[in-house]
């Protein structure tokens, strides 16, 4: 479903990566690691066209992403940023934001799925009435993931999703992402527990992308 073939990934004039090849099947889970500044996020962003500093081809369902309408692409391939912006009001309002976009006009927030997601991520239902700026970093990360998953994308791009989570909650989120989420996942993580749990793990060494293991 996803094919990334890059001759070169760069930022300004600096080459970050060469000869990248990743393919992810429908529902496939891939984790990506590497040092800070090695190009993990830039690589993640080739898929949703948030970064255009590369030569090569990136395909989604066989289509060259550069030729797709950005809205079409980004409502199927949703990113959760490391420190996501949620909104300005209550969590409830933040959850509704993407449903107000024209591309989602025929969809609405599914309350049953919301409850299931909150529970799976160890969030109390009452958090919906809390103000966004009172949330902790870990709560923000999980709320952003819940919001992304409510949109039922084909692909989830996660950037360090467990960086602000404690061990217990991190495990629960990991379990959900790997076993109960139908979307393909491309996840950046420096957490060894996450890296070991994903079936496919790539790491960046110098300007090369290396596959760590395959099950």
């Amino acid at each position, binding site marked *: 479903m996803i094919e990334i073939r890059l001759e070169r990934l760069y930022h300004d004039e600096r080459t970050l990566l060469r000869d990248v090849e990743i393919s992810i099947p429908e529902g496939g889970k891939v984790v990506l690691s590497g040092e800070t500044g090695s190009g993990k996020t830039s690589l993640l962003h080739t898929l949703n066209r948030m970064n*255009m500093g590369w030569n090569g081809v990136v395909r989604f369902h066989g289509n060259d992403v550069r030729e797709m309408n*950005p*809205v079409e692409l980004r409502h199927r391939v*949703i*990113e959760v*940023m490391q420190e*996501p*912006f949620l909104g300005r009001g209550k969590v409830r309002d933040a959850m509704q*934001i993407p449903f107000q976009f024209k*591309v989602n006009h025929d969809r609405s927030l599914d309350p049953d799925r919301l409850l299931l997601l909150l529970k799976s991520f160890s969030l109390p239902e009452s958090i919906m009435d809390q103000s966004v700026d009172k949330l902790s970093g870990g709560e923000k990360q999980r709320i952003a993931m819940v919001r992304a998953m409510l949109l039922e994308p084909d692909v989830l791009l996660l950037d360090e999703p467990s960086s602000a989570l404690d061990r217990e909650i991190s495990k629960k989120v990991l379990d959900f992402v790997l076993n109960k989420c139908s979307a393909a996942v491309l996840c950046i993580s420096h957490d060894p527990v996450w890296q070991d749990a994903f079936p496919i793990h790539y790491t960046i060494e110098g300007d090369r992308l290396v596959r760590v293991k395959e099950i």
Partner: protein
Amino acid sequence: MDINWIGLGLSALLLIIPIIISRLKKLNLVGTLLKAFARMVIQLAMIGLVLEYLFKWNTPASTIGWMLIMIGAAVHTIISRLDINWRFLLPVIVFPLLASSLIVMPFVIYVVVRPEPMLDARFLIPIFGMVLGNSMNSTALALERFHSDIRSSWKEYYTYISMGATPREATFGFCQKALKMSMMPRIMNISAIGIIALPGMMSGQILSGASPVTAIKYQIMIMIAIITAVTLTVFLALRLFTARMFDEHYLPLPEVMDSEES
């Protein structure tokens, strides 16, 4: 009642008071103050001369030509006030100012006042000056606000487009804030007129002998013209700004995003 030139010269004696205060308190403002006055006198003398001729000729070509020069000056002022590439800004400002002028001014002339002749410079130029001056100020303020908001809250923009928003959807909140900010003080101002201050135009008309009722009617009309032109200009300018600011990937153009850095 005219002021004679000697009388006007004597009025400068009053300036001794601010000059003494400035000296006493070591404000270091005497030079600045005198320079500002010299500049004002020269500018007013020049504009007075231009207006004399424009009123004397009073042809549609000279009047409309002067109005275009006024638009040019307004565009220049906005561009120099904003820290954004002028090539990017030019169409963003020119079209809204032209469009709002072309909607508001003909309405005021042909529907409301119907002066004789229709394109009377004595009527058109001062009214247009007020409408344009206000549109100019509000547009500069609104674009400045929009630009700085989107740069400080870029994460908000990125989050929205990364979930499938168009640039217009992703900037809705920024546009809303900028538009509201440019309208609110004017609305406040409207409700204060008459109690707190007599507006300049009304005072001027009364001083030059018009009846207060005529002055009031003009004042009401000009407030309507101004708020309409301001809202329309700012709205269109924000629209064009948003349309031009993002590339085909909906990512912001670096020259607009980074203009203050370096």
